[in-house]
């Protein structure tokens, strides 16, 4: 892990103006709003509609202040300060105080004051501000307006309209931030209410944010509604484990159970937002847990004690030695991945290690070794906001890194960043980023990149431009090479955006064949020297040749040329070739599985060792930027051990010392390595070729909300998944007779799916990778770019 930031970046001087708030002088940047200037002095002006990340609307009028020279009180949330402006808040102006009290009284007229049964009670801006600036007694004795309650604006989001104060935060969020303007204010006057069009729910991956920014209890989530009171909760700052966006979260729990997760404020990363998966998908942590070690005896798994299971694992792995493969998956923390990387090289003497439990290629591994592993934080969220152009290659941000999507959308809106997507589908997400499609058949992104229009090359050659390449580039022969060549040719920064939270950390920790921690090539003598010193072993004990990874590793296991496998946090269904993966696990002589849940792989393993889930341990994820996102342990009294601790026990039982197994120790040890300054592996240079034929190729990626294991146990979230459709071009639809459904057939079977015309370019069909009722790997037996037969059919 290399902690480097662009601290040397030049900071442009900010033009300031001097203003007075309640007589106190303060210099603020030009264009500052009065409410922010007051905040800087610690003066809190009441507010409801104001939100720093939303455009001012000045609707609630709670923040009225007096500005010298202006006849009427002004809303502080929309009042831009000017040089010498005299601002008087409720602290010094009777007019402002009286105006604010008046608005507060109005806001409570029609509010039900049902705080004792409201989820927001205890953390409610309306409650708090009514206490601080409201009148002690209401003068209203009329009848409040009521609404039937609650209504669903989506499967996950519920709306109690009578609590709403019409601040329009939710509608503005939906429109301005998420780009899903399905929430709108309806009706007039006191009957004004938030709502959606009939039969058109609030279909947004970011809907949960509206619950969090609602300043009253009008919007609640089905998953948290009536579950607890905020003052009964214990809050821990955490990092989201679902993707490589690296969102800062707050996890709230009560009596050993997580009750909810909130987006936490991190201006450099997720600002104040997160996606619905990050917010609502945490029920899986509790369900289906492995409670104790298992050992296979006479063909059957039976419960075993920890000493016994560790001893069996140690014995089997010691026997297999360098003939062991290690599959770590992409979901581990940096520290755990580091422990696997070290365990493989030191305890097993093996370099057969890979974190990529998905479609992968050797060419991709070469690109990662050459250009990504251990590189310092370069392209950042902030850099994207300033970028003149961003090229997306084999990457669908809204599904695969939603917070990155939000930032790209913001960049396109605010800075005019030109977003271009090399893909087979012009998605709704691309449109929301005002992006343009550079058509490329799935698996043939490489040839699209080598034949880019000169205008695109010129744009990418503008300083500050960025190429964001997704993990699916692995499915394009020649793609990784073309990406590296394009970055070289244009000077655009290259950033790799994997889908899972642990992939970048695993890469930097050395959980890939040929890569030692910090991106050090295992073939480099000085690299081995540096690593062996911190690992406390002789440099000659480390493998010197690049081991097996990807499909080659699975093939070796399947063919029996590997004696053992250590598998962590991996599903067979994760891999491109599901059958090969299953056969590899089943065919391997000895399988040690470190897992927290019962799975297909634990059922096949010889030793199963239960480990901690993310809420039971501390750790670090590296987001796509390479930025460390450390987090603490939510449940401090959890008994489960981390992967690193269990690996340490196995190594100890093997009689080998592998160094620190605790998070602090590993961070210290890895930090001691420093950045790698030596030569890097060469970038891949595989030529790419466009195949022109009449086949239909599969364009596919994981939808944000799908049948992923980590979304289990949250039916409301699952119900917000986008509909499963087959996207085809209008030409293909016409040639099939414009059917409503198509039958898609691959080697493993067929699927009948509804058609979305215009959902893919000619020669391609879009299919969700692993959604309810459509898994291309399991159901069809095809990979990305594979050919399928498409016929009209079904309903």
């Amino acid at each position, binding site marked *: 892990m290399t902690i480097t930031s662009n601290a040397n970046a030049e900071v442009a001087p900010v033009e300031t103006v001097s203003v007075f708030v309640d007589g106190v002088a303060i210099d603020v940047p030009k264009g500052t709003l009065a409410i922010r200037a007051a905040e800087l002095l610690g003066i809190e002006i009441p507010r409801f509609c104001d939100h720093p990340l939303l455009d001012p609307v000045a609707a609630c009028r709670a923040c009225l202040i007096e500005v010298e020279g202006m*006849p009427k009180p002004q809303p502080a949330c929309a009042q831009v300060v000017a040089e010498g402006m005299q601002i008087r808040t409720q602290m010094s102006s009777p007019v402002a105080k009286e105006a604010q009290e*008046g*608005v507060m009284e109005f806001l409570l007229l029609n509010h039900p004051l049902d705080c004792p049964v409201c989820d927001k009670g205890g953390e409610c801006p309306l409650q708090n501000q009514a206490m601080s600036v409201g009148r002690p007694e209401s003068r209203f004795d009329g009848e409040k307006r009521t609404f039937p309650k609650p209504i669903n604006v989506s499967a996950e989001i519920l709306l109690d309209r009578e609590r709403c104060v019409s601040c329009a935060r939710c509608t503005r969020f939906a429109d301005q931030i998420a780009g899903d303007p399905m929430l709108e*204010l309806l009706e007039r*006057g*006191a009957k004004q209410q938030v709502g959606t069009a009939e039969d058109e729910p609030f279909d947004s991956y970011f809907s949960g944010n509206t619950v969090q920014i609602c300043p009253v209890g009008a919007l609640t989530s089905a998953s948290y509604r009536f579950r607890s009171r905020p003052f009964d909760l214990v809050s821990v700052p955490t990092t989201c484990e679902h993707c490589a966006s690296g969102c800062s979260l707050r996890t709230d729990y009560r009596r050993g159970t997580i009750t909810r997760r909130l987006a936490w404020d991190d201006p450099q990363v997720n600002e104040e937002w997160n996606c619905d998966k990050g917010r609502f998908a945490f029920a899986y942590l509790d369900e289906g847990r492995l409670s104790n070690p298992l050992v296979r005896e006479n063909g059957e798994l039976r419960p075993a004690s920890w000493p016994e299971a560790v001893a069996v694992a140690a014995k089997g792995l010691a026997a297999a030695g360098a003939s062991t493969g290690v599959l770590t998956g992409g979901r581990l923390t940096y520290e755990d991945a580091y422990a696997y990387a070290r365990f493989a090289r030191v305890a097993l003497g093996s370099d057969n290690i890979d974190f990529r439990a998905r479609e992968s290629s050797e060419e991709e591994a070469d690109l990662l070794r050459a250009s990504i592993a251990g590189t310092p934080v370069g392209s950042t969220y902030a850099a994207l906001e300033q970028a003149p152009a961003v090229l997306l290659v084999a990457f669908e941000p809204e599904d695969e890194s939603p917070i990155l999507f939000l930032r790209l959308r913001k960049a396109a809106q605010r800075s005019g960043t030109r977003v271009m997507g090399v893909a087979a589908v012009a998605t709704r997400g691309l449109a929301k980023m005002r992006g343009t499609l550079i058509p490329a058949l799935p698996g043939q992104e490489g040839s699209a990149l080598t034949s880019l229009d000169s205008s695109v090359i010129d744009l990418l050659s503008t300083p500050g431009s960025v190429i964001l390449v997704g993990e699916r580039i692995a499915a394009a022969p020649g793609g990784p090479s073309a990406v590296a060549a394009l970055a070289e040719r244009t000077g655009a920064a290259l950033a790799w955006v994997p889908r899972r939270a642990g992939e970048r950390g695993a890469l930097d920790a050395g959980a890939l064949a040929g890569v030692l921690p910090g991106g050090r090539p295992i073939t480099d003598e000085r690299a081995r020297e540096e690593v062996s010193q911190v690992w406390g072993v002789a440099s000659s004990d480390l493998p010197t040749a690049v081991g097996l990874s990807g499909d080659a590793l699975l093939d070796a296991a399947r063919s029996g040329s590997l004696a053992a496998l250590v598998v962590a946090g991996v599903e067979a269904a994760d891999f491109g070739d599901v059958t090969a993966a299953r056969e590899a696990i089943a065919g391997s002589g000895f399988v040690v599985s470190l897992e927290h849940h019962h799975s297909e792989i634990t059922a096949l393993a010889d030793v199963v060792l239960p480990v901690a889930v993310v809420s039971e341990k501390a750790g670090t994820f590296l987001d796509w930027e390479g930025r460390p996102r450390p987090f603490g342990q939510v449940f401090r009294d959890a008994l489960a051990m981390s992967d690193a601790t269990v690996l340490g026990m196995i190594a100890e039982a093997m009689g080998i010392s592998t160094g620190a197994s605790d998070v602090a120790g590993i961070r210290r040890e890895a930090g001691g390595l420093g950045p790698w300054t030596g030569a890097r592996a060469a970038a891949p240079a595989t030529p790419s070729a466009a195949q022109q034929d009449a086949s239909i190729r599969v364009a596919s990626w994981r939808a944000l909300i799908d049948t992923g294991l980590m979304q289990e146990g949250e039916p409301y979230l699952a119900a917000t998944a986008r509909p499963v459709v087959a996207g085809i071009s209008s030409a293909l639809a016409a040639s099939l007779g414009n059917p409503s459904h198509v039958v898609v057939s691959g080697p493993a079977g067929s699927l009948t799916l509804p058609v979305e015309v215009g959902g893919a370019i000619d020669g391609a069909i879009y299919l969700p990778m692993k959604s309810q009722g459509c898994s291309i790997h399991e159901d069809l037996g095809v990979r990305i770019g594979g050919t399928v037969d498409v016929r009209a059919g079904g309903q």
Partner: protein
Amino acid sequence: MPLTPVITEHWDAPDLYTIDGYRRFGGYRALQGALKKDPDAIIGMVKDSGLRGRGGAGFPTGLKWSFVPQNDGKPHYLVVNADESEPGACKDIPIMMANPHALVEGVIITSYAIRAGHAFIYIRGEVPNAIRKVANAVRQAREAGLIGKNILGSGYDLEVVVHSGAGAYICGEETALLDSLEGYRGQPRLKPPFPAVAGLYASPTVINNVETIANIPYIVDRGVDWFRQFGTEKSPGFKVFAVSGHVNRPGIFEAPLGITMRELLGYAGGVRGGGEVKFWLPGGSSVPMLTSEHLDVPMTYEDMAAAGTMLGTGTPMIFDQTVSVVKAVTRWLEFYKHESCGKCTPCREGTYWITGMLEKFEHGHGSAEELDTIASACLQIGGRSFCALGDAAATPYPAAMKFFRDEFIAATQTSADEQFDPVASYVFAGAVTR
């Protein structure tokens, strides 16, 4: 003071609404002259004329036009606010019905002056007759080559769109009107930016009232000096006064600004049945009421302001002694409650609350403390709302209390209908048999 019919001069001609009828009285002569002038000269002329907006606020029209940035490379728009919805106001719709070509000619000249290629006339949806009249006038003007490409060989192009609103009071607020015109829900926009800089489709836009625009052809045709001979220094020109209520001859009287209500009453045949004026409103329900003491105040922007009210739309409503002021104020507040757009808290919640309290008084159930509560609630609305329409909701009650406090006190015990026989206040009171 004599009447000065200008816009209304030939309203008795049965075909004035046609282009031929309009032309017979000199129509479209001003346009021919205007197109030969420099646009800035027309703006200068309107500035010099001192014409003030006739929609209610009285903002100087020429000044408003001059705010539009020139040579900015953006399209400019003229939007005519024909969403006349103010209770008591009935002057724009008669103008559109009787003399639509004056509006159309004004639109063409104004668009030329502000260099707009597109003009929109936003008419409230409840008046299909007026919409048809204006749409027909636009069609005739287009057929006569007065709208479209290269108007009268000048090289100037203009398209005019007649747009029908859907009947929301808020859409008479100019920025809400723009939202509605763009297809959004009509709610006022945050200013700045002002429409002159970023209005319709975020482009520089002038929004004027129907009567204001209908004045333009006459000013351009007859000159600044002619226009300034009417009215006062600060309120030059003439005004279409629409007198309604308890008068013998309600109707439209075009007179110089500065005429008094007493004179207008004379033209309107006096209060019905020889009765007395109890209270009157110079221009719509949004301006504070006056009483019979104020009948000799000149009807100008400045004199009305000095009397504590506003000229507003210049459509006086006369109420005689048969009317319960409590009931009248309650009706107005019910209107504001019903028409509040809901955007800002003071108007949305304040009108809801005040209306509820006033309805109690109307039925004789209020308390003296509640009168203070209403007064304080009005203070919490006025000057604190998002737009002027919200502020307006707070005007009827304080003015009524200033003059008729006793009636409200009485209403704590006696309902409005018991204090004042409602039937007596009907215009058709004599026809009611009981």
